[in-house]
């Protein structure tokens, strides 16, 4: 059904987006929690930093990644020297680019739903002997679950569709970093490949829709379970 090219790009895309979301999920939730529940100096700065990838053109983000994590970058040099590992031009790099671009969306969605959690329930849990961490794990996060799911899927979709930063930071290497959007872009660039491009476009849409609908169903289920009598 899928051509080898398509399935290759699809698999890379799924791996890249999956790893990206997996990698940012915990830090994203943690940052969202910090931003939602605490006041501390430098909060605005952190908030700004988190949003940076959203406000810059992806190509610029990719460029900045290249400058810092590339072979000659500050961190990149160090990675190379100590771990003999380099991120750019590898699928891990593509995942990083996708994760970075998706990070603000994840944080925003999670933060919004953390802020909607009734602090009265958290207070009740604390009087029941739960420390901050237990309150977070047993009350706050479960109640924010629909938002976390939403955020994760937004992030997944965003990582899945990442193009500019990936292209710049990880390049468009077939079999390694050529994700669906990069393959799609290449096809659009070739006149006469409209049909192939349309197929890839459809595949992207189907994948994204499946993840969206699955998340929707999940979020609805958790919400319905704890629904009050007024709907």
């Amino acid at each position: 059904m899928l051509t080898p090219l398509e399935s290759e790009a699809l698999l890379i895309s799924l791996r890249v987006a999956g790893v990206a979301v997996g990698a940012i999920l915990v830090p994203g939730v943690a940052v969202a929690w910090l931003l939602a529940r605490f006041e501390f100096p430098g909060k605005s700065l952190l908030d700004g930093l988190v949003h940076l990838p959203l406000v810059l053109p992806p190509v610029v983000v990719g460029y900045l990644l290249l400058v810092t994590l590339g072979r000659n970058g500050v961190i990149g040099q160090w990675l190379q020297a100590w771990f003999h590992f380099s991120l750019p031009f590898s699928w891990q790099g593509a995942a990083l680019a996708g994760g970075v671009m998706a990070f603000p969306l994840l944080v925003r969605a999670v933060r919004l739903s953390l802020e909607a959690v009734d602090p009265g329930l958290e207070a009740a849990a604390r009087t029941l002997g739960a420390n901050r961490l237990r309150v977070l794990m047993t009350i706050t996060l479960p109640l924010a679950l629909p938002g976390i799911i939403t955020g994760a899927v937004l992030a997944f979709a965003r990582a899945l569709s990442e193009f500019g930063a990936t292209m710049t930071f990880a390049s468009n290497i077939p079999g390694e970093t050529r994700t669906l959007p990069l393959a799609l872009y290449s096809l659009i660039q070739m006149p006469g490949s409209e049909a192939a491009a349309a197929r890839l476009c459809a595949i992207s849409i189907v994948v994204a829709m499946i993840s969206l609908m699955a998340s929707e169903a999940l979020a609805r289920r958790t919400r319905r379970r704890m629904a009050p009598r007024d709907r």
Partner: protein
Amino acid sequence: AQQVHVYAAASLTDAMNALVSRYEKTHEDVDIVPVYASSSTVARQIANGAPADLYFSANEKWMNWLDEQGVALSERADLLNNRLALIAPKDSSIDSFTPDADHPLAARLDDGDRLAVGDPDHVPAGIYAGQSLRSLGEWEALAPRLARANDVRAALALVERGEAPLGIVYSTDAEASDDVKTLGYFPADSHKPITYPVALVGEHPDDAARAFRQWLAGSEAAGVFRRFGFQPAGTDDS
């Protein structure tokens, strides 16, 4: 199989794809991995350590830039030439003509119509187009009326879709598309020569890369390039 990473200008996409499959048929132990993007993007990636064995640029500027960055380049050679074509949608009523002093472009653009080009600020095809328009004395009139695309294929698409009644692209792009017709070619002396240099990248290029580089410069490859509208260097079949 041994992998050879070829970082090539986007305008080479179709031709290179054909060449790669042809080469791999006869060299089963070699896996050519082509990476396409605009020459600038590709150059910057190589400068930042992309695992390139071969760089195939659409202009000399980016090859020179890479050199200046201290990237080791060897066996550099200009392999191809290309031409600038004036194109229109397939069903356009504009007659074929060669844009020159006697045939101003501006006259063929209706009010509100735009001329599709690669962005003259950075897209190589656009830079050449700008040079031509300047030397033809049309830059002043047309500069505000350009539809600047971020690569040459995007400019082509604008004409294919009929958004722009006229566009300037490489002749290779014009030939690749069934939805546009070539109205004429810009005089070769109206812009700097459009040259595609190739070079091996790295201090110690491996043999497979070297061999592919040699093959690209050979006559078999030249035939393929010609079929896609390129002019192998040193020939002049316009």
